């Protein structure tokens, strides 16, 4: 009795049906499947009620989880259907591919010859089809009889004169070895489900010695295997990352629909469109079915495929518009879904802990991006936020924070998107700790202990520690920040570090975490910045000045946020302004900051402007104006005296000087809103008054002013 070798198309629904039919007919007593033999013990889990494809077998090097390989399965994968058939009938299942222990030991081998990976695709293209599944549907699916003999013949023809090489030769030698061993064990009706490409190799019977020679002395590593949830989009990826099946939802439909796939598909499409409030009647669906059928006939196809159905949806259901069609494409054709593995699957403690946490916090990973709004005043949401921040700290990018918290807000918006690789990253992170919280602590402590971590790295970790509520690591991180700040001679580094820390202090208030030590470090940091800044501003060129202003703009609001240290900061800025060699840009900007903040009187600001613009250095004057106005132009519109100063200066420039400063001025004023520019132009021309200033009634305005001052935190008792 010869064995039944089923050459399949990985993730082909047509193949999957045919495999089940063939197995039912053949009634094998053992099943061999292309996959890592290390997973033999795990295969029983495939029958678990909690197991929900798409899932993948993951094999990774035990000591180095990042080196991993995957064998993904969807419900419409022929291999999956074969496994399920065998488990249902109590037939033993074995994987027969080259063990991952060998596969992962050798370096990654590029195989640019896609014909080998997708031989049926090659055949389809030869037959003039651009879509393999469509070709398979036409020549195999709609035929009814078993396609496997024909496929085997075709493969034999494709491979004629092309002996297997390298890794492929080793894999096929191993498959034959498993086949022989199985035969020796006394099984008589052996069925093999493997990629169509390998069929000829399994049918021939080269001498045992030859296979043994190929498999002798292979390098080997210790590997661990498990099941992980997978996504439809990543199905065709056998190892590592790459492009996926383009229409998994369609394949899923093809496999699961019991009959009349076209009618069911169009009905579902109509349902999707109705959900979005588009009017689609049953009459529409009927016409769409007719159109798809006629189109298929016109194209000489036995049944409508995805192409014809899409045309029908477009022309009949969507009135020719692309927008609703996109919706159908997203929801139905791609139909992204994430699989599930049962609790009894082998997992590292970290994965288990995450599973537990997710159940506790009622979160569910999904393969499509979903938004999550958290109100941190609610305990459940606060816990969720902490979990997401912890994962982020570990480096598991499940959630992305939108609109970063800002000034002590109690709302967070996350976008959650689970990718299959995150499981690998979890396994990798398991060296850091056995729980999510523990791993986050370990990670933070690890960063603090790294001598090469920069101050900015450390501060962002400190902030994350507070957000993630892993305070155990905080003392270490804060100590590291203190040490680094004391040694760092570059004041801009300190300035870059401050905002995150200032925010962290604020979070401490909002989130009920205390940060005494942090507060001390922050205060020290402010002192150091105040001491270092005056020395850093001298003799800067234009670019360096611009860079420094960026840092000043970061520090300024941070100091305001902190409250304490504001006086010192203000004094520092005044001291900086006292320097004679100050670049115009910095001079102007600092003047503005102090003016806005109340640290400098109006007259003083006017005086500084007068000094700056009357000196015969047009370039510096223009830079000063730029710095001064980068805080907004409204001031100028409403302050006659300042506007007059600038106006007089520009008007008084010599023609050469005017040409010199024109680009600078254009840059400054070009950044303002058109309405602001128009208002300014009107003011200069003197055509329009800025508003009825004279009519303000101080008594009536007082109440509003008080409220505004209260909001701004400047209430005078």
């Amino acid at each position, binding site marked *: 009795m010869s064995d039944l070798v089923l050459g399949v198309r990985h993730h082909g629904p047509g193949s999957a049906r045919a495999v089940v039919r063939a197995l039912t007919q053949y009634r094998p007593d053992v099943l061999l499947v292309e996959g890592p033999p290390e997973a033999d013990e795990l295969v029983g889990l495939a029958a678990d009620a909690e197991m929900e494809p798409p899932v993948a077998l993951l094999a990774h090097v035990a000591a180095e989880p990042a080196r991993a390989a995957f064998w993904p399965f969807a419900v419409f994968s022929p291999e999956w259907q074969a496994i399920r058939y065998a488990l249902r009938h109590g037939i033993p299942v074995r994987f027969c591919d080259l063990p991952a222990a060998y596969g992962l030991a050798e370096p990654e081998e590029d195989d640019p010859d896609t014909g080998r990976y997708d031989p049926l695709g090659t055949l389809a293209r030869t037959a003039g089809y651009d879509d393999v599944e469509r070709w398979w549907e036409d020549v195999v699916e709609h035929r009814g009889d078993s396609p496997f003999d024909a496929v085997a013949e075709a493969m034999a023809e494709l491979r004629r004169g092309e002996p297997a090489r390298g890794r492929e030769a080793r894999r096929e030698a191993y498959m034959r070895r498993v086949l022989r061993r199985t035969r020796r064990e006394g099984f008589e009706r052996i069925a093999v489900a493997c990629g169509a490409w390998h069929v000829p190799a399994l049918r021939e019977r080269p001498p045992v010695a030859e296979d043994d020679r190929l498999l002798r002395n292979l390098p080997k590593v210790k590997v661990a295997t498990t099941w992980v949830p997978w996504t439809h989009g990543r199905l065709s990826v056998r190892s590592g990352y790459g492009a996926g099946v383009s229409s998994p939802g369609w394949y899923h439909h093809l496999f699961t629909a019991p009959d009349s796939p076209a009618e069911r598909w169009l009905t579902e499409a109509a349902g999707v469109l109705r959900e979005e409030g588009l009017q689609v009647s049953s009459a529409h669906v009927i016409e769409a079915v007719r159109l798809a059928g006629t189109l298929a006939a*016109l194209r000489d196809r036995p049944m409508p495929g995805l192409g014809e159905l899409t045309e029908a949806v477009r022309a009949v259901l969507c009135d020719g518009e692309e927008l609703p069609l996109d919706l159908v494409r997203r929801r139905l054709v791609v139909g992204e879904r994430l699989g599930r593995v049962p609790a009894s699957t082998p997992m590292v403690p970290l994965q288990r802990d995450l599973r537990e946490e997710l159940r506790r916090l009622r979160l569910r990973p999904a393969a499509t991006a979903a938004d999550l709004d958290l109100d941190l005043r609610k305990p459940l949401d606060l816990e969720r936020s902490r979990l997401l921040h912890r994962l982020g700290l570990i480096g598991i990018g499940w959630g992305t924070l939108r609109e970063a918290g800002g000034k002590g807000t109690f709302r967070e918006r996350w976008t959650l998107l689970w990718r299959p690789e995150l499981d690998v990253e979890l396994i990798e992170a398991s060296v850091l700790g056995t729980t999510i919280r523990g791993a986050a602590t370990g990670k933070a402590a690890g960063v603090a202990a790294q001598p090469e971590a920069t101050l900015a790295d450390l501060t962002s970790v400190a902030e994350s520690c507070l957000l993630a509520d892993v305070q155990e690591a905080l003392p270490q991180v804060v100590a590291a920040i203190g040490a680094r700040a004391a040694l760092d001679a570059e004041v801009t580094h300190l300035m870059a570090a401050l905002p995150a820390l200032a925010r962290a202090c604020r979070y401490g208030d909002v989130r009920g975490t205390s940060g005494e030590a942090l507060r001390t470090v922050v205060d020290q940091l402010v002192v150091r910045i105040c001491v270092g800044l005056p020395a850093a501003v001298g003799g800067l060129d234009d670019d360096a000045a611009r860079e420094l202003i960026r840092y000043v703009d970061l520090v300024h609001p941070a100091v305001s946020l902190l409250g304490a240290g504001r006086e010192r900061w203000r004094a520092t800025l005044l001291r900086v302004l006292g320097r004679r060699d100050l670049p115009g840009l910095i001079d102007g900007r600092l003047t503005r900051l102090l003016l806005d903040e109340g640290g400098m009187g109006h007259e003083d600001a006017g005086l500084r402007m007068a000094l700056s613009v009357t000196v015969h250095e047009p370039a510096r004057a223009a830079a000063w104006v730029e710095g001064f106005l980068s805080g907004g132009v409204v001031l100028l519109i409403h302050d006659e005296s300042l506007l007059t100063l600038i106006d007089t200066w520009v008007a008084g420039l010599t023609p050469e000087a005017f040409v010199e400063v024109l680009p600078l001025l254009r840059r400054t004023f070009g950044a303002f809103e058109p309405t602001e520019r128009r208002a300014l132009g009107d003011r200069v021309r003197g055509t329009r008054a800025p508003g009825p200033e004279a009519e303000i009634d101080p008594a009536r305005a007082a109440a509003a002013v008080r409220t505004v001052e209260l909001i701004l935190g400047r209430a005078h008792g």
Partner: protein
Amino acid sequence: MTAVLRPHAEQQYSAELAALAAADDRPRPPGWKLSPWAVTTYILGDGKKITPKYIGSRRLIEVAVATLATDRALLLLGVPGTAKTWLSEHLAAAISGDSTLLVQGTAGTAEEAVRYGWNYARLLAEGPSRAALTPSPVMRAMSEGRIARIEELTRMPSDVQDALITVLSEKTLPIPELGEEVQAAKGFTVIATANDRDRGVNELSGALRRRFNTVVLPVPGTPEEEVEIVRRRVAQLGRALELPDPPSGLDEIRRVVTVFRELRQGMTADGRTKLKSPSGTLSTAEAISVVAGGIALATHFGDGVLRPADLAAGILGAVVQDPVSDRVVWQEYLEAVVRERADWRDFYRACRDV
């Protein structure tokens, strides 16, 4: 050669249609002169004897033909100049052998144009009778099992549009005055065209919309496709107007197409420079007429070779529809893009001189 300025499609391509019909062994839907496969071949050409009438996606033509084969009505949508009318004429010619059953939709189109009118002299003399009835093109198409074409459907008043609903859903046209009706013979259906730029004119009612399958005709996807369309059409027009064969003005055609595409897309072909788009659509049809006009100029007033100067005025006329804003657009394009292209010097000068 007949003296007709523009013969109908079924006359101009009668040889091709006859050849296709002779070779066509596929089943034909009732009332069709050709099988759906042959119709598709007629429209898209076969690379040999059958010339392509429409250059573009095969998919669209297949959907259009399949729609008509399911006796549904077909609505061709698109911006002006995307060959909607052209395609509907050729479809009608290939399927019914008759593209003349045409209703032109305008704001003044009356219900008689879709249903029937009366010969009043006869009506007064003989009273209401079939003989006193003047059938509309739609009515004739129904009784003869042919395709009726409706141009610019959305320009018709809504009540006239709605007169089509019974025709399309019940396939019958009642004549209450006579107590009779005209039932559509097999092969009857309607091809309507509408412009989706001014869709708001008389938006189709949901009930009517539901009777149509919609195919949106796009502007040509690639520059090569558009150059090919312009070249072919210009050659055909030239023959009809008995102009001598255009000397190889392919470079000039390519330039016109480039100018039109860049302004239409608001971006230069290399994607580097943003441009303002003029208010007109700058369709392929306009490019065709610019080139045809240029060839006429070159033949009658120039040296017979298509030169930039022959095209400049035509391009200016096509681009500048709104005398104020479009002129600015054109000037900017001329100075910022055309002037910078080394091999476009002659073209730039010609445009400046207009």
